């Protein structure tokens, strides 16, 4: 039998006409020959190899002859095509008739597949938009970000001095620019307004290949510090919003950060910003301002970090080559400025990595989950088709006996599966558009999903590929199941169905879908645990009843540190006296807002070579900050109003800072130094650890310095209120405007809203994968129910005999359930292993839970086992309640 099947496979390689005329006989002869060779002592492998060699020699030759022949007879060719088309039509008619007879089957199959295709297409659209179309700029694969690196800080900004050196020395880079987006105050209108400015070098436009829609862009010599010209380029969107698209905008004056700048051009939008993640990243701004106007801590002439480098690699140059070039530039700089530049370097990273970053793992995990759901859907439909194919075995056998070839039967199944796929793909694409909408509503804040996601060409190609795969899985599996039957046995068996046919295939399919469900359930469980861990993780401060807002003082009007400190002090006084306000403080960066900074520091008595100093996250706060956010003071004191520009510098450190820097010693009275302050700073207090970047922050040293002693123009306000935070928003605004009526304020929102937003990604993942897992569970439940119910129905006769012979009903019941549980057990083992592997691969997506977390795995297994039990119990009951007389009389 094995020989014959093997021979059939070989004969398949010959042209149809050949197969039709001598195929059967050929199979016999091959079979005879292999048998004889085997009997003569040749190994099975050797006979097989020589048969394959024979086929490889002769089949192509026969095809060549056949094709030569065919091209010589065009009229016959057309005739053959017609019959092919006729056969196809016949198959389609046959499938449609079958659906009409069993509409429930067709409906379930189509809906299942449509659901799977919809979810997969939607998810792929997002992956496509975020990962594949992330950077819609010219030569995006050659775009790199340039980051500074010190021994203590692997990713910091690039100084203007480094930029100069890179432009001079790094030959691997085609063009290099600097960029940094920052809020800018726009004044001179009816009320102060905050716009998003991007401080850029003239070369930045060359890096991204940008052009002006009207007017011109500024050049490198117009952007240099010291000689920056009073010019500005605005974006198309800002032009529309601010000037209503009026061409006279060119030449108009915008007072930005107190400096009047002339609009010289309008940037041509290289893409629709709403269709790309993060609005296209670099151009998500209103105005592009020469970098020489940058209001940084230092005036760009020094060595301090300032902006982000963007560069385009020369064609054909690798990232590694660019990095070694950058090393050379850094080394030259270190030699020229040994005191300030040692230990510092600049390295390039592909823009894709910077922007997409960690969301890649998130999206890939989601795509894998949705793919698993689709696979389960396919398996279910495949099972349905297989069950029907076995049901139709007698009919098929009859047709075979009447001359239908095995190929015809397989073709019939494939055509039916193809038809199912076409219908469900159409529905699935429609539903995919809607679910895409649903997913974008749920989108997490830190995954840069664009506002509008296009189902573009690659999505369609993907959908078509998925559909073809679905059709193959749904059609080929049952076809394989039915091509192995013994005609005579089936025809002789009468109405009693032959047992076992396709049963093994069906069981394997069910194990596959159960295993996928366990994996999905476990993954979703791990994500739910992560969400809970995130929500439960102590953040170190109390976010409820706190109002926050941001502001940036215009450097033109707040030129000295004294001016800024005076503004802070007067504003705080006014805000404190506003009704409903319990306490208020300025802080440079509100926790979880995405703002923040760090600094290197040296401890008195422990000199360090430059570049290798320890780092701490750096916070500038006014007195009462700790009280306002309910961060506990563990030792010493808070800042006071007397810690001002004239008083000795003081600092508060967090617990981790104190314990890591002075283990076992009292930090109060110890002194440290930072780069941006001239004198030693005395530690006066220790505060509790408070997370700053997000709930998954690891404890790290935090250094708080008085905002009055180190006043900076960008700051935020935190206000603790008795009632709902937003209820005092207006009074707080008025209080600030009573100090400076031209000061724009933005990001006015409660702190707990900011904190909740950071949980968004976790909630998004948990909800989405949870939904997938439930769908998978339902499909798998239906799947195992179908298999068990079917096998019981098939074995009615046999069960009848066993009952008649005295088997107890509980024994029959137990037998069916035991079989179901065996399948489930195998699936649980495979699925759990898969879940652990997935969780290991996508570590960053989970938090506070181990990939092999036993309780989650056990819960997932138990849930699935429960569903499987229920799905098995119903058919088992039916088996146990078989009436032997009826079952036997059926014959």
């Amino acid at each position, binding site marked *: 039998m094995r020989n014959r099947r093997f021979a059939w496979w070989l004969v398949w390689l010959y042209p149809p006409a*050949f197969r039709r*005329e*001598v195929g*059967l*006989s*050929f199979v*016999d*002869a*091959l079979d*005879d*020959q292999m048998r*004889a060779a085997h009997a003569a002592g040749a190994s099975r492998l050797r006979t097989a190899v*020589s*048969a394959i060699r*024979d*086929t490889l*020699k*002769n*089949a192509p*030759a*026969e095809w060549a002859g056949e094709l030569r022949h065919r091209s010589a007879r065009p009229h016959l060719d057309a005739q053959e095509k017609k019959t092919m088309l006729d056969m196809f039509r016949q198959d389609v008619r046959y499938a449609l008739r079958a659906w009409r007879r069993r509409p429930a089957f067709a409906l379930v199959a189509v809906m299942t597949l449509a659901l799977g295709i919809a979810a997969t297409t939607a998810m792929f659209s997002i992956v496509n938009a975020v990962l594949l179309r992330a950077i819609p700029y010219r030569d995006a694969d050659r775009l790199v970000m340039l980051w500074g690196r010190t021994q203590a800080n692997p990713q910091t900004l690039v100084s203007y001095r480094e930029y100069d050196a890179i432009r001079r020395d790094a030959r691997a880079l085609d063009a290099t620019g600097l960029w940094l987006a920052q809020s800018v105050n726009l004044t001179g209108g009816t009320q102060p307004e905050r716009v998003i400015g991007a401080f850029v070098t003239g070369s930045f436009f060359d890096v991204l290949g940008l052009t002006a829609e009207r007017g011109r862009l500024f050049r490198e010599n117009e952007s240099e510090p010291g000689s920056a010209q009073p010019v500005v380029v605005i974006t198309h969107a800002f032009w529309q919003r601010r000037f209503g698209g009026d061409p006279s905008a060119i030449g108009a004056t915008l007072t930005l950060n107190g400096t009047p700048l002339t609009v010289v051009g309008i940037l041509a939008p290289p893409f629709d910003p709403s269709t790309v993640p993060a609005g296209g990243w670099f151009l998500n701004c209103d105005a592009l301002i020469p970098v020489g106007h940058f209001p940084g801590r230092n005036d760009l002439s020094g060595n301090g970090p300032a902006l982000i480098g963007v560069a385009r690699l020369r064609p054909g140059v690798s990232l590694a080559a660019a990095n070694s070039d950058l090393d050379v530039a850094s080394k030259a700089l270190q030699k020229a400025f040994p005191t300030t530049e040692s230990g510092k370097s600049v390295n390039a990273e592909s823009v894709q990595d910077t922007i997409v970053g960690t969301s890649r793992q998130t999206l890939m995990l989601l795509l894998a989950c949705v793919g698993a759901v689709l696979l389960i859907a396919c398996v279910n439909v495949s099972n349905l088709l297989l069950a029907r194919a076995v049901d139709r075995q007698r009919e098929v056998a009859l047709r075979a006996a009447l001359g239908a070839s095995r190929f015809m039967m397989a073709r019939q199944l494939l055509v039916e599966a193809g038809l199912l796929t076409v219908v469900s793909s159409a529905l699935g694409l429609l539903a995919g558009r809607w679910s895409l909408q649903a997913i974008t509503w749920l989108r997490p804040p830190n995954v840069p999903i664009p506002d509008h996601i296009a189902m573009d060409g690659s999505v369609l190609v993907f959908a078509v590929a998925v559909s073809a795969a679905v059709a193959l899985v749904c059609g080929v599996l049952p076809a394989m199941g039915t091509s192995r039957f013994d005609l005579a046995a089936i025809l002789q068996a009468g109405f009693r169905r032959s047992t076992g046919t396709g049963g093994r295939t069906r069981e394997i399919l069910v194990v596959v879908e159960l295993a996928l469900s366990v994996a999905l359930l476990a993954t979703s469980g791990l994500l739910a645990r992560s969400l809970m861990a995130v929500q439960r993780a102590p953040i170190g401060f109390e976010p409820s009843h706190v109002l926050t807002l941001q502001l940036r003082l215009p450097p033109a009007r707040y030129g000295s540190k004294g001016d800024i400190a005076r503004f802070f002090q007067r504003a705080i006084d006014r805000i404190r006296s506003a009704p409903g306000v319990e306490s208020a403080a300025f802080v440079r960066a509100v926790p979880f807002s995405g703002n923040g900074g760090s600094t290197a520091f040296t401890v008195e008595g422990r000199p360090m070579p430059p570049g290798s100093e320890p780092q701490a996250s750096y916070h500038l706060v006014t007195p009462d900050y700790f009280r306002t956010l309910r961060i506990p003071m563990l030792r010493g004191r808070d800042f006071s109003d007397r810690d001002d520009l004239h008083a000795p510098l003081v600092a508060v450190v967090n617990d981790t800072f104190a314990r890591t820097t002075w283990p076992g010693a009292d930090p109060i009275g110890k002194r440290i130094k930072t780069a941006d302050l001239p004198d030693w700073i005395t530690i006066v207090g220790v505060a509790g650890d408070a997370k700053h970047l997000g709930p998954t922050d690891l404890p790290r040293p935090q250094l708080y310095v008085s905002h009055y002693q180190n006043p900076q123009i960008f700051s935020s306000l935190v206000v603790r209120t008795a009632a709902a935070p937003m209820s005092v928003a207006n009074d707080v605004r008025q209080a600030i405007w009573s100090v400076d009526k031209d000061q724009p304020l933005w990001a006015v929102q409660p702190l707990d809203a900011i904190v909740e937003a950071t949980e968004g990604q976790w909630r998004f993942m948990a909800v989405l994968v949870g939904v997938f897992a439930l769908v998978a569970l339902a499909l798998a439940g239906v799947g195992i129910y179908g298999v068990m119910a079917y096998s019981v129905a098939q074995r009615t006769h046999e069960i009848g005999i066993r009952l008649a012979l005295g088997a107890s009903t509980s024994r029959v019941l137990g037998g069916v359930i035991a079989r179901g549980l065996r399948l489930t057990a195998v699936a649980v083992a495979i699925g759990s292993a898969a879940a652990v592997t997935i969780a290991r691969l996508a570590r960053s997506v989970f938090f506070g839970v181990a990939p092999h977390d036993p309780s989650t795995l056990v819960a997932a297994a138990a849930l699935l086992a429960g569903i499987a039990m229920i799905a098995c119990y119903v058919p088992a009951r039916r088996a146990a309640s078989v009436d032997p007389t009826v079952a036997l009389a059926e014959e």
Partner: protein
Amino acid sequence: MTLRPIEFNILLALAAEERHGYAIMQEVARFSEGALSLEAGTLYRALHRMLKSGWVAESARRPAADVDDERRRYYRLTPLGRRVAAAEAERLARLVSAARAHRLLSRA
């Protein structure tokens, strides 16, 4: 018209009696004294050609019931096939006598 050696071999194998595919292969191997071992693919390609040319046909008759294997297809020579074989045999015979006349072949 020239006949390919393989075709002549098949015609010869079928000259005595009807045979199925594997039997043809065995017969060819037998009268070439093992020198020619026919591969199944080669045999059937030739057979397919010869069926289309009308030299051989599938046999409607069956051998005696005790040696019959019902699934097998047997092939027989058509009258045309027999004439083709005879013509080829005559051509070869003429070549053989020519060879003898030139003492290329001993009379043994």
